[in-house]
């Protein structure tokens, strides 16, 4: 018996709960040689902005114990080039593409949301709110519930599509953030983005990253991510997408038990480009071996 693997995130139906995380899977095409895109639930594009962005100087990446830091600086082609150069590929694939995007003012966020709303190939929107709010002195949208709510409300007004909000873990109270975003109209929450970290080159007496600090991802952050998914899933009604250090089907299923309806695979795709597909297949096999008929029965099924 093949277990039922499909899940729903807002109005978006996924054939299985495994997506790839923004910034770790290019625009989908880069991985098509290694992954059968039709074996995963969805993929999320690199974060888009209104104008193309060059990103930070190098070094932008460094390995850390059980993880990596990145300070890419949100380099991306911008919404126009995205439409011209990347959307045609999205059209050719029978898998939903989710556009991740960010701005520096609520207005920019709203404008992007409405432009993405108009692209039929974009199945859903994921708002990255881990960006500095240039209007409010650079405080990060994603660390203040009020700022976050204003961004989400602005996007909500601009799109009918499923609106996913991606939360930053660099906060005292992730539940408060989650509730603010849910209240402002988010259809789903992605938990978590990267933890802010730093690496130092001792001999050169300098930060390794040109940007000094960067975002920590990979297996190292899994316990923190799992805890936050568990906290958020118990506190909101909208579906939660679990992200952070997922390397295997077991990891992914742990997030589902903690309350995630779907998961995103990030750094793992660098370590093993076939990771997302292997995880989706591994999850299905795990259910089949145990005679579990439907993945939905595992969502939030943690006991104790």
């Amino acid at each position, binding site marked *: 018996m093949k277990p039922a693997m499909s899940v729903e995130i807002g109005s978006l139906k996924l054939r299985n709960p495994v997506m790839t995380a923004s910034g770790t899977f290019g625009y989908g095409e880069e991985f098509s040689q290694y992954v059968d895109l039709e074996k995963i639930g969805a993929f999320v594009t690199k974060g888009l902005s209104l104008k193309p962005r060059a*990103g930070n100087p*190098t070094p*932008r*990446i460094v*390995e850390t114990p059980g993880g*990596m830091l990145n300070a890419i600086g949100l*380099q991306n082609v911008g919404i126009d080039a995205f439409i011209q150069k990347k959307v045609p590929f999205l059209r050719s694939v029978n898998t939903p593409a989710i556009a991740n995007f960010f701005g520096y003012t609520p207005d920019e966020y709203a404008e992007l949301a409405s432009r993405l709303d108009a692209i039929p190939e974009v199945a859903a929107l994921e708002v990255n709110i881990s960006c500095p709010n240039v209007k409010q002195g650079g405080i990060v949208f994603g660390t203040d519930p009020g700022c976050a709510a204003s961004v989400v409300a602005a996007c909500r007004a601009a799109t009918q599509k499923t609106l996913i909000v991606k939360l930053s873990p660099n906060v005292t109270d992730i539940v408060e953030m989650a509730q603010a975003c849910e209240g402002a109209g988010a259809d789903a929450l992605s938990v978590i983005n990267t933890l802010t970290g730093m690496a130092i080159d001792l001999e050169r007496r300098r930060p390794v990253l040109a940007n000094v600090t960067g975002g920590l991802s990979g297996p190292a952050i899994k316990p923190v991510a799992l805890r936050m998914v568990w906290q958020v899933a118990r506190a909101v009604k909208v579906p939660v997408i679990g992200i952070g250090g997922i390397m295997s089907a077991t990891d992914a299923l742990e997030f589902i038990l903690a309350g995630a309806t779907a998961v995103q695979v990030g750094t793992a*795709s*660098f370590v093993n480009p076939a990771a997302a597909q292997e995880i989706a297949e591994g999850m299905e096999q795990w259910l089949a071996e145990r005679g579990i008929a439907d993945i939905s029965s595992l969502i939030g099924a943690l006991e104790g």
Partner: protein
Amino acid sequence: MQFKAMILDNAEVSPGYWRMRMTAPAEMLAARPGQFVMVRVNPSIDPLIRRPFGVFDVGTLQPAYTGAAPQPYLEILYRVVGKGTGMLSTLHDNDILDILGPLGTGFENGPAGEEKLIVGGGVGLAPLYLLAKELVKDSPVRLFAGGRTKDDVLCITEFERLGVECYTATEDGSLGECGLVTKVLEQRLEATANKGQIFACGPHGMLKAVAVIGAKRSVKTQVSLEGYMACGMGACLGCVCQGAEHSTENPDYRCVCTEGPVFEAAELKWEGN
């Protein structure tokens, strides 16, 4: 392509430098000189990220007399500099590695018959052997190999066996000319009135010097760069380098892993880097 490779041989060829031969699918034989592979050192999370290595050689083992099937192989030449390469050097025959490749854009051969000047510094020689193997088919090839000491000048015998004329230079004078190998390169260009074209791989300072020489003498120069790579396929945007016209206002970043690692030196920005 992603594949599991079985180690056939892993030996120290000079202090701190190792050469590893491993099985590969037949498709690997199509690897272009200058392309590279991303190696997952082990299935654990330490190290987590794959490590990039140039394709040193590919070929097919023809087992004599035994009737065993021919075995395509891949070779890398690596220097032990840290954790990942340190672990590689402890692997035994028959151990298994997870490999991604061939990746990236390799060297363009250039017109037949024209003199080819290959410049390599230390482990920078790694991707140049396969290049030389290809270039000698239709062109005279000269190798300029440099290093700090004689231990850093690798595999000269192999290049000579291809019929490449080899020049060596070491900073401490322990082998060949004393000084930088770029000096020897310039002497050759001087002697031939800037004929031919240059192919270089090595430390950034050496590549920069070669780029300057190439530009000054209007000699076409291809360089193979390094960059900190997480994915090797254009997704992470970690490995980028700056195009010639790059500026903070008009940024022009190139992906070393897909647009490179081989670039025409003239395309890139060298000042301040």
